[in-house]
């Protein structure tokens, strides 16, 4: 829709252009900004003019084998990049499928994938933020550029509550950095919504590390059902009882028109149990029918 209070749009070309004037905000894909009235918004600074590569290998040494996803990388660009991973390195097959599953978990269609960015999704901090589900499971770290410097925060710490992040308005999400071990881990994905392929009410991603510093370690990340991403970490595959206990201890169930808290708390253990069964079964690749 037309953003009627806007008086100008600047296209950022350099880092200096990222200093915001009062009333300005950053423009990623615009798929949320232009979808609802923006009272008080006077200006936008378009980040796409910065020309960041959508995805690139993480710089060595500490990032060796990892992946840098630009804040401006669109969902479509990430899906396309991931589609190429299994061919280049079969160990990345499961991570590639996870990218696809997360993209499909959005309410938005492939048409909106073309514009919506990973950075924009993380910045919104919506519980149904599928790129939050993804980057949380990948153990990604956000690189934030502020007027006074840079800082790095894990995505699971950046998103602090429903529609609230730890980002200051004048900070840009430059990139989401994914460590190498995340790309070779095995994943299982489950989602439930109030309609067959609707906006997510609960998303559970299970991860079993294969290489890296903690092979055999397991992380189960709950999103959409909770006000913020909840990573449940285990040194090895938990037993069903251990996992159920960890899920039962979650204290931030979300309540909105996409599902009341009691139901979300009730179905999340079901999804978690399925995820665990799949990881334990060794099939390892989340299938297309996974998004029940």
């Amino acid at each position, binding site marked *: 829709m037309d953003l009627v209070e806007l008086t100008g749009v600047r296209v950022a070309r350099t880092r200096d252009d990222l200093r915001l004037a009062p009333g300005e905000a950053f423009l990623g894909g615009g798929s949320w900004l232009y979808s609802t009235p923006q009272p008080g918004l006077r200006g936008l600074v378009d980040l796409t003019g910065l020309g960041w590569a959508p995805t690139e290998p993480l710089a060595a040494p500490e990032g060796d084998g990892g992946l840098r996803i630009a804040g401006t990388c669109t969902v479509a660009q990430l899906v396309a990049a991931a589609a190429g991973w299994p061919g280049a390195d079969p160990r990345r097959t499961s991570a590639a499928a996870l990218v696809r599953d997360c993209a499909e978990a959005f309410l938005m269609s492939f048409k909106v994938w073309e514009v919506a960015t990973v950075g924009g999704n993380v910045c919104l901090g919506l519980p149904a933020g599928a790129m939050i589900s993804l980057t949380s499971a990948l153990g990604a770290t956000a690189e934030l550029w502020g007027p006074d410097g840079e800082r790095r925060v894990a995505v699971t710490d950046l998103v602090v509550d429903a529609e609230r992040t730890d980002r200051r308005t004048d900070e840009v999400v430059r990139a989401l950095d994914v460590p190498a071990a995340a790309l070779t881990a095995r994943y299982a994905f489950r989602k439930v919504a109030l309609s067959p392929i609707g906006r997510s009410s609960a998303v559970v991603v299970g991860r079993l590390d294969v290489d890296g510093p903690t092979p055999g370690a397991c992380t189960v990340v709950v999103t959409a059902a909770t006000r913020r991403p909840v990573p449940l970490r285990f040194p090895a595959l938990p037993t069903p009882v251990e996992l159920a206990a960890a899920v039962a201890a979650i204290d931030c169930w979300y309540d909105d*028109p996409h599902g009341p808290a009691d139901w979300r708390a009730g179905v999340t253990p079901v999804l978690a149990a399925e995820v665990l069964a799949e990881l334990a079964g060794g099939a390892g690749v989340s299938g297309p029918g996974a998004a029940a």
Partner: protein
Amino acid sequence: MIEVNGTPVDPAEIGTHPGQCLRTFLRDAGRLDVKKGCDAGDCGACTVLLDGTPTHSCLTPVHRAEGRTVTTVAGLGTPEHLHPVQRGFVAAGGFQCGFCTAGYVVTAAALADADGVVPGADDPAREADVARLFKGNLCRCTGYRSIRDALAGRSNVAPDGPGCAGHGGVGRSLGAPAGPRIVSGCEPFTLDLPTTGVLHMSVVQSTEAHARIVSIDTSRAEALPGVRLVLTHHDVPGTLFSTGRHQSRLDDPDDTRMLDDVVRYVGQRVAAVVADSPQTAAHAATLVDVVYAPLPAVFDPEAARTPGAPLLHGDKGPESRISEPARNVVAQSHGEVGDVDAGLAAAVHTVGGTWRTARVTHAQLETHGARAWVDPDGTLVVRTSTQVPFLIRDELARLLERDPATVRVVAARVGGGFGGKQELLVEDLVAIATLRLGAPVQLELTRAQQFTMLPCRHPMRVRVRLGADADGVLTAMAVDVLSDTGAYGNHAPGVMFHGCHESVALYRCANKRVDAEAVYTNNVPSGAFRGYGLGQIIFAIESAMDELAREVGLSATEVRRRNVVVPGDEFVVNGAPDTDLVFGSYGLDQCLDLVDAALADGRGAAAVPAPSATSDWVLGEGVAAAMIATIPPRGHHSEAAVTMAPDGQVTIDVGTAEFGNGTATVHTQLAADALGVAPERVRLRASDTATAGYDTGAYGSTGSVVAGAAVARAAADLRARLDAVGGDPSVLESPVTARASSDGSPRSVAFNVHAFRVAVDRSTGEVRILDSVQAVDAAVVLNPEQLRGQVEGGVAQAIGGALYEELVLTDGVLSTAAFRDYRVPQMADVPPTRVLFADTYDTLGPAGAKSMSEAPYNPVAPALANAVRDALGVRPHEIPLSRDRVWRLARTDTGVGQPLPPALAPGHPGELPVDEKDENHDADDHD
């Protein structure tokens, strides 16, 4: 420069706003084929190709289109040279109102092969993939089957052209005459007109649920350059009226002012700003400062009629025709035939319960909008998205104190109605502004305003108690209805009386009692909605009948066979029987047999999801029946004229509006048949008070049976006159016109029986529809494909209301004011429905036909709830049967899964209060 459909367009020349999106820019540039369903990225109606990639133009900042190419639906093909995808939509009949069509065609064009077929669309194994591709496109009318056919290259409409001459085509699946124009984006809808010289209006809405307006400061808004006028309650007539429109204006209470100094719900119109551009108007609307003095508010209808409750219209006198303003009761009906207590005492079986329906909205893809201007001769012209142009004209004339002859109301093709456009909601403001300013003024509501400002479907609480003898024959039927009409009483009496009518009259029972009240609350108003109250009450009664069948040990169809009315019976509710309702034909027996046979074939049962460690699927079947009068009571009139020119061209002038209900096609067929000409020779001029004779309007499913009857009669009369001169129009010296009218009385009844087979996952509450069948008695089928489409569309909309849709209000504040939060069914949500036709001939309807456009909605929710009951062993009492509710139901009895964490268990809004729980388990035997 932006290249649009091959032509360079200079944004500087058109003029852009800094925050403008591509959609409004394209429309400013004259590309009126780009539609708006939501302006929020959710519906896909605005899809264009941006450098070949399908894009929601409402989400695209216009600066990002610089230097790129844009293709709109009109850039793909023209009516003469259709793009293969466009041909596919015509051949499949892949639209009803056609407002969503541009978005589908453009999206599909980006995906389709050279034949216009979307890869995979013709492969049943890939249906889910196709639904995923089109999750960004919403259609409210079709139920998606015909769209799937279009994407797959399947053809449904009868081929036209020569060879059809002399066979006008009643009984043939003639395509909509506007088809080629719709699929190529050149059929103009309400606001598809150039905007040069037009001023734009934006509405300020109340933020309070109940308050007196202390002051309105318009100075900041007026200071914004480009603002021409701000209207508040100081500037408009104080005349009371009702937004609900009927043949008799006395049907609805006069309780509404154009702009009032008291607001009664959050979202109510408070002021209107007119400016040079829509952006300025919308911006200025945010600068109107309103000071409110809050008043106590009431949101629960039971509380609202309890002594001491805040009164919404306590200040109104008898001239407003409110039943009991001092009790917030706008309408009531209390009556008994026979002796219900005695009937219950004599019963062997009694069942009962209390059922609730949620608030749902029409979600027509075209939002309400109107443009007004004054013609050189002084006529006030209002072009508006309405189902009732003549009723709007008459009420506008009354409000503005003008002679109706100086008011002209025109409806172009309407982008979906479903009852929501049987109201006067925007026309008054544009009319008064244009009279004030002397320039054309346009108001186009936003999608959020559709949700927060406009009437929705009446939520109801319905208590039913049935008694039956040992054979399951009813001995008593008691129904108690509480209808929440929200802040205003538009349609409150009509919906309440009609809702209790055919639902109760369907059953033969000597002892009946109905108590019904419609009550004001400080919620968004309720209004006319497809089914007009029947769906809510049928949900309760058909659930109770299902329970009775279980108690007695009969099948769902057998308990109905033993109790439904048959020819010879009277139609009785809680008083004297109807006098103008008759069995023009009777096909209910066939409908019951048809669904029995369909369910017996076991379709879908094999598709039960495989059990897994965690999922827990159970199967169920459910049936429900519905009856509806083919025409609303108390008068419905239409005058039609049919003209034959010497060259054989036929013109129909009729006042009814086409909004996807298919009347344009049916009228063409009826006239072509009577006159023995090919349908291609027939032109329709509709819904213009200046050119057509009077028509009450397109509501109550009357477009075919009232207006259609008038058309058929006029055409038959014309035929007789032609026959008198030898039958060949070429001997005519000038065009000959015949006129006829139809008065909508006596009225017939139509029937719908729906059956579902479902699987329910007790671990998540998911309800999966394995088979869906609807048998309909529409008597003679004038256009099989169109009728099937009406049924499928009604079923899809009802599945939405039964499983997904809900306007969530908390203290009057809506939290579901966008399509992303209000779940209109998307393609993936709607299973195929088998549509079966009973074979009857109606003695009253045109060519033996009955109406069938509201009716298919009504039996769906109870059939689904009965199927869920069958699967779970626990009866649902509330729709939507959202997954959370079904999950909770599964927990109440069977103990599947973990018990609820104590902190979450009690007092959730979905849980019934304890006393009603008891009431909902009172199926008790007396033997």
